[in-house]
């Protein structure tokens, strides 16, 4: 099971796991930040909201950093092409993320309403812009990005920032924001009581159906309106990584046909829709732990749907189909995949174990009373 072909497949799965871990953990951090100015009206209410994630958001954000690092290590040409091609979009994500560490840590250090209000909006930007842009990115993964390689395998991007913002991609951005906000609202309702709890509950009731409708719209658009390329010829699955050694036809059988060719893959979208629907129905009631778990399953299902849909593509090129990157021709060397695999096998469980321990210690309902009691030590 440790041959090159298997390792390439295992790493496709592991990067999916890291992406899902990022979406599930930082997803609710983002959502909580988006809801912050609306669900919290007074300073104490806003501190309740911030302190539901204040002690743990930094660990969650490492999943994003690790996702970047893992793509660099496993799919160097994806990392190079994606980050340099979407240069300004990546810079915007980065600048938006700048608001988060300072927002969480600095807000409560000065007792001036203008200062605190300014950071609340900073946290809002930091939690809202990244999911929109990452959603736009996901949309463009489906549409294909305009890039090509020259003979030295240097990647060139043939589009512009504004071209990323096509109607379909913008829809994906909005749906992703709805997803993080919904996920965040569930978390917030679970962890709080009083006014914040009530308003989070109201947000769940509204966001749930909007999210589901949005996902249906995206699905319909993909199935009916977007072409899917297909590989017509390539070297073996264990050949050295060189994306130019294959030919790709721009228009293949389509996304639905791709799923129907391996019907087991349909489990992913089914899990997505069922999970999020149950999360919405349960989230309106009291079974918050169950609602949150279903939301996690639903989000994981949606990300698997994206991954399965693209498989074996990682980045589709819309201008030079042969330059498209797949998990068979964009990976690092066999020995690097093995090295990174063993490091992950050892450290992933360790990280999960101590993260669980930290959450256990810090768990509990955050109330306005607890904020007032520890006013000098909490965020």
């Amino acid at each position: 099971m440790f041959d090159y072909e298997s390792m390439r497949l295992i790493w496709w799965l592991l990067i999916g796991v890291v992406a899902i871990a990022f979406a599930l953990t930082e997803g609710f951090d983002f959502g909580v930040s988006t809801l912050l100015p609306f669900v919290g009206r007074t300073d104490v209410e806003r501190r309740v909201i911030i302190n539901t994630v204040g002690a743990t958001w930094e660990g969650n954000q490492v999943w994003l950093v690790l996702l970047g690092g893992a793509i660099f290590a496993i799919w160097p040409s994806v990392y190079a092409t994606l980050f340099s091609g979407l240069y300004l979009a990546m810079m915007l994500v980065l600048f938006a993320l700048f608001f988060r560490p300072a927002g969480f840590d600095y807000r409560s250090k000065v007792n001036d309403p203008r200062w605190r209000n300014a950071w609340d909006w900073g946290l809002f930007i930091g939690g809202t812009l990244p999911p929109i842009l990452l959603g736009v990115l996901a949309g463009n993964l489906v549409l294909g990005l305009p890039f090509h390689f020259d003979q030295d395998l240097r990647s060139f991007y043939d589009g512009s920032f504004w071209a990323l913002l096509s109607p379909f991609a913008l829809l994906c951005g909005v749906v992703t924001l709805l997803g993080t906000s919904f996920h965040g609202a569930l978390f917030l309702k679970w962890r709080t009581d009083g006014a914040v709890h009530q308003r989070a509950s109201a947000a769940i009731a509204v966001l749930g159906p909007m999210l589901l409708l949005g996902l249906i719209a995206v699905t319909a658009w993909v199935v009916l309106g977007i072409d899917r390329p297909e590989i017509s010829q390539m070297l073996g699955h264990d050949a050295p990584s060189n994306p130019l050694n294959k030919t790709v036809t721009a228009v293949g059988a389509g996304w639905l046909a791709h799923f129907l060719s391996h019907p087991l893959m349909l489990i992913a979208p089914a899990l997505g829709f069922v999970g999020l629907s149950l999360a919405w129905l349960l989230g309106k009631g009291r079974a918050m732990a169950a609602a949150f778990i279903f939301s996690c399953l639903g989000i994981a299902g949606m990300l698997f749907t994206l991954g399965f849909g693209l498989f074996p593509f990682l980045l589709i090129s819309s201008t030079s189909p042969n330059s498209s990157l797949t998990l068979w021709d964009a990976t690092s060397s066999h020995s690097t995949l093995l090295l990174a695999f063993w490091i992950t096998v050892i450290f992933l469980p360790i990280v999960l174990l101590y993260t669980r321990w930290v959450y256990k210690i810090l768990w509990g309902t955050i109330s306005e009373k607890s904020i007032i009691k520890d006013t000098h030590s909490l965020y």
Partner: protein
Amino acid sequence: MFGDDIVMLSRMQFGLTALYHFLFVPLTLGMTFILGIMESVYVMTGREVYKDMTKFWGKLFGINFAMGVTTGITLEFQFGTNWAYYSHYVGDIFGPLLASEGWMAFFLESTFVGLFFFGWDKLSKVQHLTVTWLLAVGTSLSALWILIANGWMQHPVGSEFNYETLRMEMTSFADVFFNPVAQVKFVHTVAAGYVTGSMFVLGISSWYLLNNRDIGFARRSFSIASAFGLASILSVIVLGDESGYTSGETQKIKLAAIEAEWDTHPAPASFTLFGFPNQETQTTEYAIKIPYALGLVATRSLDEPVMGLKDLHAGSVERIKGGMLAYAELQKLRGGDRSEATKQAFASHKDDLGYGLLLKKYTPNVVDADAAMIEKAANDTIPRVAPLFWTFRVMVASGFTMLFIFAMAFYYCATRVADQKRWLMRMAVWGIPLPWIAAETGWFVAEVGRQPWTISGILPTHLSVSSVSSEQLWISIGGFALFYTVLLIIEMYLMLKYVRLGPSSLHTGRYCLEQSAH
């Protein structure tokens, strides 16, 4: 291939964002250890003042840590956004090192930092102490992985070029991990971080003592900082990473440039203390030299010569010629000629391939370079001497000044008269910027001294950049300038606010400002 402006702007952005990030990193490295020491004393003695010390210095650490996180993400993104060809070319080696940093270090520090701040009432004393130490270990592990990555850029070992994938691939993880340059760099850099934390605590404690505030609190902080600082600065100096400058051509060139060694002198080489390096005449004017010193420092021996720049330049010419041969064979391989003869011919020259790539700046085909182009490319391998010569001396001078401060502080603490030495405390306050000056000049020497390479001898800087436009670069540089300036002002404002408040900011009722105000 790319306009010089793209290369210059990309370098400028990377240099500024990395140097800016390193304003916060060394303080994090040092403060976490000092917090661990203070809290250990608290757990062992049970005296509340040590808990207050951990909490108060922890507050200042927290303000700094947030900036470290903010500016660190930039670097994780920036290899891809601005150095895309570099990422493709060496991702096989560099990527797993960054990913390991994520698994082993970032998770550890970022998960436990929240518990450090908010776990005081939820954990037992020993549990909380463990959390603090895990935080400290996490930050130093982070330095370990990134310095192994940087050490590999300085002295690339355990890897080779693969003509089928057109990139470097790892051949031995052990060689990469135990790279002597990386190991020396790691010790040097983390110890410099510990010095930074110590100088910060020493300087601020001195300011409280000079103002007769919270004497017991400040005196204890002062003595911990003086002891830890002395041990750390000795590590920095004794294990100074100049000893890493003997492995590999580029490191040798860097060393010769730092010392303005134009000619190879018979061993043992003397050390140029001061002088004015002149790049045109290739001499150092008004040089003051210390006999034997350079040979001892650089080679740890009296009989090995230190190579001079003129000889190193001649070596570069030879390797560029070898690189042209390697490139010619590589073209044959890429054209489909996979005969054993071609493979062997490529294998025998491929160590010089990177030197061949230097010629891409002058002729895209490399193999048709004339003597003038080879000479130009060889000149590129010799960096500007004067900036390296001077920044290195600024770093060393800062280091020895701090050695004096810590040694005196430690001596007077041991003899219990530190409180009376107001001159020393004033010096400690004014000395607070020194570790930052040393760290920033140190990185300048290490990175500018590696030019014209991103990976020494393997990949030239001008080929490493992304295919982006100068407009895009100006927009991002403008964004960084704006955000980083505003954030720095905010951070300094908060830092000064909490330094002025001192331990009174803990609201325990035990410290000076609370007693007068409430």
